[in-house]
C-alpha cells in the first residue's frame, strides 16, 4: 500500500504544453505513472508526450476517467486551474505552481474544502509512491519502495533524506512534499493520519522548517494519535528573525515559529529529532529494523 497515489492513479496534467509541464510529464510517464490526459485551453485534440490534450478539465475527466490532477500553470492562473479541477470532480489536486497571489489562494483553498476535494500544495514538489506512481517533480530514481513514509515542507531537503534512506536499503511507502507556502491544502496532520492508517507504512520521517506553528500542532497530533514511530528534522536553527528564508512560510516572526520551539514540541511528543538530514534517515532506518 501507499497513500494518495498508486498504480490506480489516472493522472491529468494541467498546463501540459508549457515548458515545465512538458518536461515533467515526460519524466512522470517514464517513471511509469499512468498519465491519461493533459489540459491546455485551445490545444484540445492535440497530443503532448503521447498524451491526449483537452480544452477543459471536465472534458478530460469525462473521456479519460482522470482521478488526480497535477498543475503546472503559472502562479497567477493556478487558483483558476484548482477551481476548474474540483468543479470537474477531481478528488485530489496537486499544485506545483508558485507565486500565487495570497488572496486568490485563500479563496481557492476554501472552495476546495467546500467541494470536499483534497489539495496538495501550492509551491510543492508533489508526491511519489515509489514503484507505483510519481506525481511531481522529484527525481524518481533516488526512491525505492518500502516501509517509511516521508512528509516534508521542503523539496531538495527531502531528496537529501530520501537518498540516505535508499542508501541504507530502506524504501519509502509514499513521499509527500506539502509545500513551503503559508496557505497550503494538505498539511502535516493530514499526511500523518494517512500514514498511521496505511498498513505498509511502519515509520514516518517528518521534515519541518521554521515559520508558523504547523510542526507544533503536528507534535500534539503525534502524541495523541500516532502509534507508529516518527523521526523529525527541523531546518532553520540559524535563521535570523523577521527574514523569510526563501519559502514564504519560512519566517520567524514575533517570536513565533522558531526551530527551538518546534524541536522541543516534537521531542515532548516522543519524536526523535535529528541534527542532520542524514541522521534523520539513519534514525528511521533503526526504527524499521527494531
Amino acid at each position, binding site marked *: 500500500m501507499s497513500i494518495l497515489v498508486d498504480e490506480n492513479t489516472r493522472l491529468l496534467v494541467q498546463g501540459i504544453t508549457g515548458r515545465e509541464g512538458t518536461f515533467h510529464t515526460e519524466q512522470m510517464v517514464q517513471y511509469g505513472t499512468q498519465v491519461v490526459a493533459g489540459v491546455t485551453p485551445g490545444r484540445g485534440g492535440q497530443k503532448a508526450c503521447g498524451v491526449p490534450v483537452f480544452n477543459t478539465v471536465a472534458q478530460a475527466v469525462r473521456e479519460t476517467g482522470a482521478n488526480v490532477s497535477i498543475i503546472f500553470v503559472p502562479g497567477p492562473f493556478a487558483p483558476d486551474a484548482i477551481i476548474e479541477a474540483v468543479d470537474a470532480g477531481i478528488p485530489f489536486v496537486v499544485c506545483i505552481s508558485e507565486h500565487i497571489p495570497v488572496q486568490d489562494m485563500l479563496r481557492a483553498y476554501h472552495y476546495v474544502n467546500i467541494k470536499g476535494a483534497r489539495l496538495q500544495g501550492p509551491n510543492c514538489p508533489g508526491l511519489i509512491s515509489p514503484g507505483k506512481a510519481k506525481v511531481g517533480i522529484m527525481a524518481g530514481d533516488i526512491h525505492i519502495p518500502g516501509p517509511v513514509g516521508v512528509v516534508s515542507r521542503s523539496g531538495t531537503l527531502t531528496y537529501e533524506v530520501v537518498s540516505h534512506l535508499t542508501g541504507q536499503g530502506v524504501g519509502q511507502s509514499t513521499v509527500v512534499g506539502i509545500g513551503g507556502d503559508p496557505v497550503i491544502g494538505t498539511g502535516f496532520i493530514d499526511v500523518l493520519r494517512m500514514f498511521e492508517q496505511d498498513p505498509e507504512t511502519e515509520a514516518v520521517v517528518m521534515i519541518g*522548517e521554521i515559520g508558523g506553528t504547523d510542526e507544533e500542532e503536528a507534535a500534539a497530533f503525534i502524541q495523541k494519535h500516532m502509534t507508529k514511530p516518527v523521526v523529525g528534522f527541523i531546518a532553520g536553527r540559524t535563521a535570523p528573525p523577521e527574514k523569510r528564508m526563501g519559502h514564504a512560510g519560512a519566517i520567524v516572526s514575533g517570536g513565533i515559529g522558531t526551530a527551538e520551539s518546534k524541536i522541543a514540541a516534537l521531542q515532548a511528543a516522543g519524536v526523535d529529532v535529528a541534527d542532520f538530514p542524514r541522521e534523520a534517515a539513519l534514525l528511521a532506518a533503526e526504527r524499521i529494523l527494531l
Partner: protein
Amino acid sequence: MVWSPLFMKIHEFQAKEILAAYGLPIPPGQVATTPDEARAAAASIGGTVVVKAQVLVGGRGKAGGVKLAATPDEAAEKAADILGMNIKGITVQRVLLAQAVDIATEIYLGVILDRTSKAITIMASAEGGVEIEEVARETPEKIHRVHVHPLAGYADYQGRQLAFDIGIPPDLSREFARIVRALVLALNDNDAELVEINPLVITEDGAIQCIDAKINLDDNALFRHKDLAELRDHDEEEPAEQAAREAGLSFVKLDGTIGCVVNGAGLAMATMDTIKLSGGSPANFLDIGGGARAESVENALRIILDDANVRAVLFNIFGGITRCDEVARGIVSALPSLSRQVPMVVRLVGTNQDEGREILREAGLVAADTMQAASQEVVKVAGA
C-alpha cells in the same frame, strides 16, 4: 522556484495617498526633501505640524525621526535635523509634514491576510500608538479580532462588534465601522497583506483621524498593480539583496564568514545549520532555485564575494531538476572573473553528478561526498 514571495513595504505618505481615496479621515500633509520645501509645506498646511521621517524601518519615533513644529521656520529646522539622519542604517531622504491633531485616545486598527486562520483578520485594540507585537506579548487580551471569510466577504456587523469590543464611544461607532470597511476594501483592491492604522485617534473634539498608516503589498500580486509596483524604494533594500532579487535568486545576508550556494530553501537552511553545528558561521542564505543554470551560479558567487566577511564558499547541490554538470560549469566559468579568490568546497550529488565532478576536477576543485563532510571541510578552510 525562483524568487519566493515577500511583501513589499511602501512609505507612510504613499499608504496615506492610497487610503485617502477610500474616504478615510487623514490630516492634510505634504512631502518634503529639503528644509525649504518643508517650510513651504508647513505654511500651506497651517498651524502646528508633525515632521515625520519617511523610512521603511520601524522605531523612527524613538530614533528622533518624528518632531512637532509650531511655525514654518521651526518646521524647516526640524526637517533639517531629520533629513540625512541615519535610522537603523537607512538615511532619511524625505519627510512628511502633517497637520498636528489634539489626541484624546489612541487606538490600533489593522487588517491582515492571516495565513494561520486562512482568512482576512481585523485586529483592534484600545492600546494604540505602540507596536502591536508588544501588546500581543504583554497584554494579548487587549487585542480583539474578527475573521472575514474569503468567500463570504466582510460583513458590517464585524466592524460594529470591534467598536463595542474596544469601547469606541457610541456616537463614533458608526464612523469606526465605516473606517474598518474601507480598510478591508483597500486590502482587497490593492492585494495588500497588511493595512494598518496605528494610531487611529479620537481627537479632543471627538473626531476620528488616521495618524499613521502602513501598507504591505503582496509581491506575487504586483503583476496586476503596475502603479504600486513602481513604489518599490530601492534605496532601502540591502544592496546585496537587491542584486540577488534582480538576478532571480532568493538571498538573505547574515553576518558569518562562510558563503553558501544551495538549491532549495529547506536544504539551504539545513546547510546553514550544518555549518553552525560544525563550528562555523554562515554568511548568507541563498537558494539558486530549481534548474539553476550556469548564469545563476555566477551571479550567486559574485554577490557572496562582495561581502568582505566571506572567507570560504560552500556549494551544496542536490541535483534533481538542477543538473550537476550545469552547476559545475557555472562555478568554473565564474572563477576567472571573480573579484577575489577564496577556498571553495563543492558538494554535488544527483542528476549528472559524474560529469559535474569531472568538470570540477579539471578546474582543480574537489567535490565532497556528503553535506557533513563538506561542512567540516569548509569550516576548516575558512579558518573559523
